[in-house]
């Protein structure tokens, strides 16, 4: 009697994680969370830092909102979600400012803007408020990883093309000879961001994954 639910719980967990990663990838499929994807992906460091932040907030808010889902009155649920998310974002911002100052400087207002990132409020409303804590954690991990993957892809392209080298946490991983002398700086600038994301979206659609309008 107790074996069966155990197995299906683990299976459910994995399914949720995978869902957020591929089928419902927040950036490429649901086209959510655009602002950070474009603004922050000028370097891998920034992209990773932002992703870590988003995962932290997503996990925190999903857990809390799922915990209180049965005693949250419908009437004020959106303000409640917003307050919970804003709290986690503020905590994140303070921690970064104290312990990761250079990251804090380069992310700037986009760190605070995590609070209006459609992804997080969307998951709270659509999932965490209606599911168990375990599943909400799975959802957060899946969506968070999907977001991270998207940010990594975009920032890899932009940093390599735009600076000719790949530098992570101060260590230059590699540097492409001709490109690093005459980098295509276009890609680190705003137009480059739009272009890369647009072409990636087209690629995903061509691969049959993107939802059509």
């Amino acid at each position, binding site marked *: 009697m107790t074996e069966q639910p155990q197995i299906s719980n683990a299976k459910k967990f994995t399914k949720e994680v995978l869902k957020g990663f591929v089928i419902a990838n927040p950036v490429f499929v649901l086209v959510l969370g655009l602002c950070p994807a474009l603004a922050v992906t000028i370097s891998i460091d920034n992209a990773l830092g932002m992703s870590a932040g988003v995962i932290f907030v997503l996990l925190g808010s999903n857990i809390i909102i799922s915990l209180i889902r049965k005693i949250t009155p419908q009437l004020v649920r959106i303000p409640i979600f917003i307050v919970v998310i804003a709290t986690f974002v*503020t905590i994140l911002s303070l921690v970064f400012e104290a312990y990761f100052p250079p990251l804090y400087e380069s992310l700037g207002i986009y760190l605070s803007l995590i609070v209006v990132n459609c992804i997080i409020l969307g998951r709270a409303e659509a999932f965490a408020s209606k599911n168990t804590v375990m599943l909400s954690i799975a959802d957060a991990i899946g969506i968070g990883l999907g977001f991270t993957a998207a940010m990594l892809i975009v920032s890899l392209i932009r940093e390599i093309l735009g600076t000719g080298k790949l530098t992570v946490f101060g260590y230059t991983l590699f540097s492409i000879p001709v490109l690093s002398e005459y980098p295509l700086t276009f890609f680190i600038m705003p137009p480059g961001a739009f272009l890369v994301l647009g072409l990636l979206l087209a690629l995903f659609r061509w691969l049959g994954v993107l939802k059509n309008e």
Partner: protein
Amino acid sequence: MDNNIKNNKNNKDIKNSKSANNKAKFAEKILQNRFYPLVFLTIIVFISVSMVMAVNNITEPVIIAQRDAEIISQAKVIFPDMDDYVPRDEYYEIFSGGEVIGYAFIATGQGYGGEITILVGLNTDFTIKGITIIENTETPGLGTKITESSFTGQFAGLSSGDVSLTKEGGEIDAITGATISSKAVTDAVQKEMEVTIPVIKGDLE
């Protein structure tokens, strides 16, 4: 005998389920109360604010300590011989080999993109030893040129009266295409000099 035990067990079950029922009804009542949403929201806000303040108490000293460390490392750029310093209310006394070799203080101005933080180093005769731009959010490639020595180097040796843009009669050439950033720096430095130098002189007496 068995019947008694059974009865007791039944009674206990009934009592337990009754109190469980009462608890459920009580909870229902709270949840249905018209003031509940507002109370709940207030409680959540209260908890959130407390948590944020708690985290802030932990991180604030760390952040302040970092700022101090940064100022001192920048001061070393202006005074390479510096080996000690004494922080005063409004400035730092810079020592080398036991002697005062200069003074340093922060000047802030509003540039084009936000606040510009400048560290000003003075010689003992109150002419500028040098300045460095500690923080700025100016336009990359234009306003950010204020951090280059081609701009900051101009300040060396000047007394406060000369610290303004050449087109205003002073000695500093503005950066082309970044007039606002340039003026923000000169104005900030001059103003802070005019405020701080009297204070230093007062302390020396």
